[in-house]
């Protein structure tokens, strides 16, 4: 066994690093570094740069316009992007609906949608969760009734991330109310301009507008916008959930956040000494460092398994549970590190273009991010659900 990257992989890392140094606009880098919210334009600007480089669709095969990277390269790319404070690629198009369209979609769908994703023409959002269902995804009740060559869709979706910017939504709907739970679900693509679709913001406790409710009121969706067969929606959804989850631990972000934390806690002073030397604080940083080391090797084990042809299964639950806990712990320590300076809240600074005294600007996002990171253990199947999955699928309980 060895844990070192091959010379080719190291050269690739250098290449990514050079690209990021050259191509990432400093305004964007600074915005991400300070934890300010990105505007739609900011996302598009960066994704166009990636697209021009051919690196937007990191996990697409070459035949569809991807760079043909394996899991190790994708891992390196993610890690370097996080280290460079590059904006995260909005995943709903390129990483989520695209693989489903490649796997289950018709040739027409592939030819129409994939290029539009690659060149950022479409902004996709996800219509999965519903107000009544929570982590019980298959309990969804949005109905789609066939009416000639259209489905008429009625219902409500929620937690639709960045839906306010999207012009397309992929959506799970119930096409057969009599089939048992998972069997009656289909996978539809909707144009957000269709009459009957209303997007209403959900403001989260960090003051951000990141998620939305989407109301569907007699929305007419052409039958050709269904991906796969009727009733095959759950298969598409499961494929998407289990498909490619090596990035799920968010390790690149955790590493960057821990570096930032250590630097911050070295600068902050407690009675004339760096906060990082205060035993109770230092101990928690040391524990986070250890957890990160372990998680990094676990992540590499999963990546190596994927590279060697394995399908990551319940390990991704493990990575999600421990990864989200670690990122939450780091966000907690970062907020604490700021001391009283974590108290003031400047939503205009985080959301807009205003400037702020450097004294506050450097830490302005810390408290908001702490609260924002609470979502990591809730969304995509709450950690309690992940544990039940592991109990069931790995331990046979």
């Amino acid at each position, binding site marked *: 066994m060895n844990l070192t990257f091959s010379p080719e992989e190291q050269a690739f890392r250098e290449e990514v690093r050079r690209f990021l140094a050259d191509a990432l606009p400093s305004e964007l880098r600074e915005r991400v570094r300070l934890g300010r919210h990105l505007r739609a334009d900011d996302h598009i600007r960066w994704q166009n740069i990636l697209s021009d480089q051919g690196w937007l669709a990191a996990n697409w095969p070459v035949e569809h316009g991807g760079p043909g990277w394996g899991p190790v390269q994708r891992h390196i790319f993610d890690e370097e992007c996080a280290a460079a404070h590059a904006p995260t690629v909005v995943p709903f198009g390129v990483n989520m609906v695209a693989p489903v369209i490649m796997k289950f979609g018709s040739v027409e769908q592939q030819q129409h949608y994939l290029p539009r994703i690659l060149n950022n023409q479409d902004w996709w959002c996800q219509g999965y969760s519903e107000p009544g269902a929570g982590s*019980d995804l298959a309990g969804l009740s949005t109905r789609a009734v066939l009416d000639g060559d259209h489905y008429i869709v009625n219902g409500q979706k929620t937690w639709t991330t960045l839906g306010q910017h999207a012009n397309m939504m992929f959506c799970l709907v119930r096409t057969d109310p009599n089939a048992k739970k998972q069997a009656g679900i289909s996978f539809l693509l909707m144009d957000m301009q269709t009459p009957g679709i209303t997007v209403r913001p959900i*403001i989260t406790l960090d003051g951000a507008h990141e998620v939305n409710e989407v109301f569907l009121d007699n929305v007419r969706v052409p039958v050709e916008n269904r991906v796969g067969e009727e009733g095959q929606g759950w298969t598409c959804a499961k494929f998407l959930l289990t498909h490619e989850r090596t990035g799920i631990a968010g390790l690149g972000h955790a590493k960057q956040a821990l570096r930032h934390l250590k630097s911050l806690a070295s600068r902050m002073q407690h009675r004339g000494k760096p906060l990082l030397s205060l035993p109770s604080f230092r101990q928690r940083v040391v524990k986070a460092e250890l957890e990160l080391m372990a998680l990094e090797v676990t992540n590499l084990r999963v990546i190596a398994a994927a590279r060697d042809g394995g399908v990551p299964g319940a390990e991704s639950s493990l990575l999600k549970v421990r990864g989200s806990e670690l990122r939450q712990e780091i966000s907690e320590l970062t907020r604490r590190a700021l001391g009283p300076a974590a108290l003031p809240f400047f939503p205009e600074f985080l959301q807009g273009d205003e400037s702020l005294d450097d004294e506050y600007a450097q830490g302005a996002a810390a408290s908001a991010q*702490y609260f924002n990171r609470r979502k990591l253990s809730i969304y995509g199947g709450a950690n309690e659900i992940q544990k039940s999955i592991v109990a069931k699928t790995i331990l046979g309980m």
Partner: protein
Amino acid sequence: MDFALTDEQRMLEETLTRLVADQVTPEQRRAMLEAPAQGASPLWRTFAELGLLHMPFSEDTGGLGGDGTDVMIIMQALGRGLVPEAYLFGLVMPGQLLALCANSAQQERWLDPLLEGEHQLALAWQEHTARYDAFGISTQASQQDGQWQLNGRKDVVMNLGSAAATLVTAQLPTGKLGVFIVPANTQGVTLQTYRTMDEQPAGDLTLNSVALPLENCLSEDVSDALAEVLALGRAALCAEAIGAMETACDQTLAYLKERKQFGLPLATFQSLQHRMVDMHLHLEQSRSMAILAATSLSLPADERDYKIAAAKAYCGESARFIAEQAIQLHGGMGMTEECYVAHYAKHLVMFDHYLGDSDYHLETVSEQLDAA
């Protein structure tokens, strides 16, 4: 050894509980936050009528002579409703410092109207460079031409924007710590106000060659009095947190009973039951610590500060645990502004940043560990 409330205390508790339930519903609270009253709010006037503004002060300074338990009862009730009034930061702490330091003329000028609800004050003890340490500050005061001159900056001063005057600590040339009363609009003073993450009004105060008449100096050696006021403030914050924890637990329990998943109420899932029990264990243990803090205020300073540091550190950790679990058990709902428990969670997390966090207080406990 007695944990029972007196008849008067029980009455106070009931009155306040009813008041908060009636007049600080989520909607009313939102309205208060969105359009803060100019001058004394109706609720503040009710506080005055109920004697709350007189309660924490000794009888010889015109108060009702309430003790730590009385303050605990009040703060706990305010915490239950997350009441957006600066009872602690605008009244109790600055008022108590005046009561301990000021001469009768100063008390007449600043303390009496405070107790009558005619104005509020603020206490500016905190500076970023000193973190949570009230004594290692760098704001300077010196006498020149028969006046005091102040230079420096005070950070995250609670209730700053609504204060008729701010009590400002400063290093004196003697090496001691002094405290000055700085009326609003004094020349050389600039305010930057904002709200905290948990929606409380605060601000930074810059003092640029601020000239003050000699009588604005309240004390040229305020250390002991300031320590006493900080102890009181910390005990009061613990009590407030208990109130907020109670509501956060109640709301979470209600949500678990009402909300269904996989066809069953969440309250029937054993792992969630045990988590809810853990929240209650944290609450009850923290309540014990808040009681310990409230009943330690009259002890000798060393013992008082040791126990209150322990209580503040303990409640800080519990408050965060309960906040995080309340969010988690509410699922996505707990992440939204619309969900009332999210506001409790914000306060319970940010609690730790007021008057010293648990690292700061654990350090105090740790320093005295062997002696304990």
